[in-house]
């Protein structure tokens, strides 16, 4: 708790600065794309949100594994704290993708492999949160939600790599690809630099909320123990 409390204000400040500068840069100071027009500005929300939606679930996967193998409470509480933030990131990615899709593809939604796996990922987030809320015993809830997190991680990976092995999809390829440490030219630098800043902002915001949420869950558990002890006295 000590180190996270000391780091939290700095991470929160870095998140606010990078998120605001990335989005302001992207919205106000980048040109329109030749084909997409001004809808290219949606990229600064859609790509970082999708990235954090997938990484958030993978973080839950790691937390679940650590809990099941080592029975460390903090890992499963971090996974629990990550879920609502990841769910919101998934929702933002789905909503901005649909809004962008209408003028570019002529439809808000299509049962494309990446879109479908992302919708399933969203449902896994909802299921994970609902399962935590439905089970009273904390350790049983941790066990069952961890199994769900591990199963759902398949869809997190699927939504990340679906464009690579399903060619029939409408969704374009990866926006940013790094091969041997170098960025591939999928996107011009004029769009890439604010996108990078926005991605850092979303990542740091996720980390800030993860730390706040985990600290809250740890305190909440301590509170429950004290309340139970008081009832027994």
């Amino acid at each position: 708790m000590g180190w996270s409390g000391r780091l939290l204000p700095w991470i929160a400040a870095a998140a606010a600065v990078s998120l605001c500068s990335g989005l302001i840069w992207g919205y106000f100071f980048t040109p329109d794309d030749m084909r997409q027009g001004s809808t290219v500005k949606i990229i600064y929300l859609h790509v970082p949100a999708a990235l954090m939606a997938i990484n958030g679930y993978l973080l839950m996967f790691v937390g679940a594994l650590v809990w099941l193998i080592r029975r460390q409470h903090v890992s499963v509480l971090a996974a629990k704290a990550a879920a609502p933030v990841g769910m919101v990131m998934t929702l933002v990615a789905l909503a901005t993708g649909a809004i962008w899709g209408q003028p570019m593809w002529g439809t808000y939604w299509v049962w494309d492999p990446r879109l479908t796996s992302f919708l399933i990922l969203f449902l896994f987030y909802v299921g994970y949160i609902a399962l935590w809320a439905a089970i009273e015993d904390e350790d049983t809830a941790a066990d069952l939600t961890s199994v769900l997190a591990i199963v759902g991680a398949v869809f997190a990976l699927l939504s990340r790599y679906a464009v690579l092995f399903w060619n029939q999809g409408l969704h374009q390829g990866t926006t940013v690809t790094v091969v041997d440490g170098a960025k591939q030219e999928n996107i011009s630098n004029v769009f890439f630099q604010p996108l990078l800043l926005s991605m850092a902002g979303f990542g740091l915001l996720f980390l800030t909320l993860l730390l706040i949420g985990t600290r809250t869950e740890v305190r909440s558990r301590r509170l429950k123990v004290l309340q139970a002890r008081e009832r027994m006295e």
Partner: protein
Amino acid sequence: MMPDLGKYALEVNSSYALSLFALAVIAGLYVRRSRAVKRALAAMEAAQDA
């Protein structure tokens, strides 16, 4: 100062409004619950110490 978004202004602005609203709501909820739990725990610990 506002950029000219042309015929896609509604799509771009609604994306930004919706996303920022969603992020603000989740951040607000996390901070509010954190403060509530911290206060409740402090009160409980104080009551136990007394």
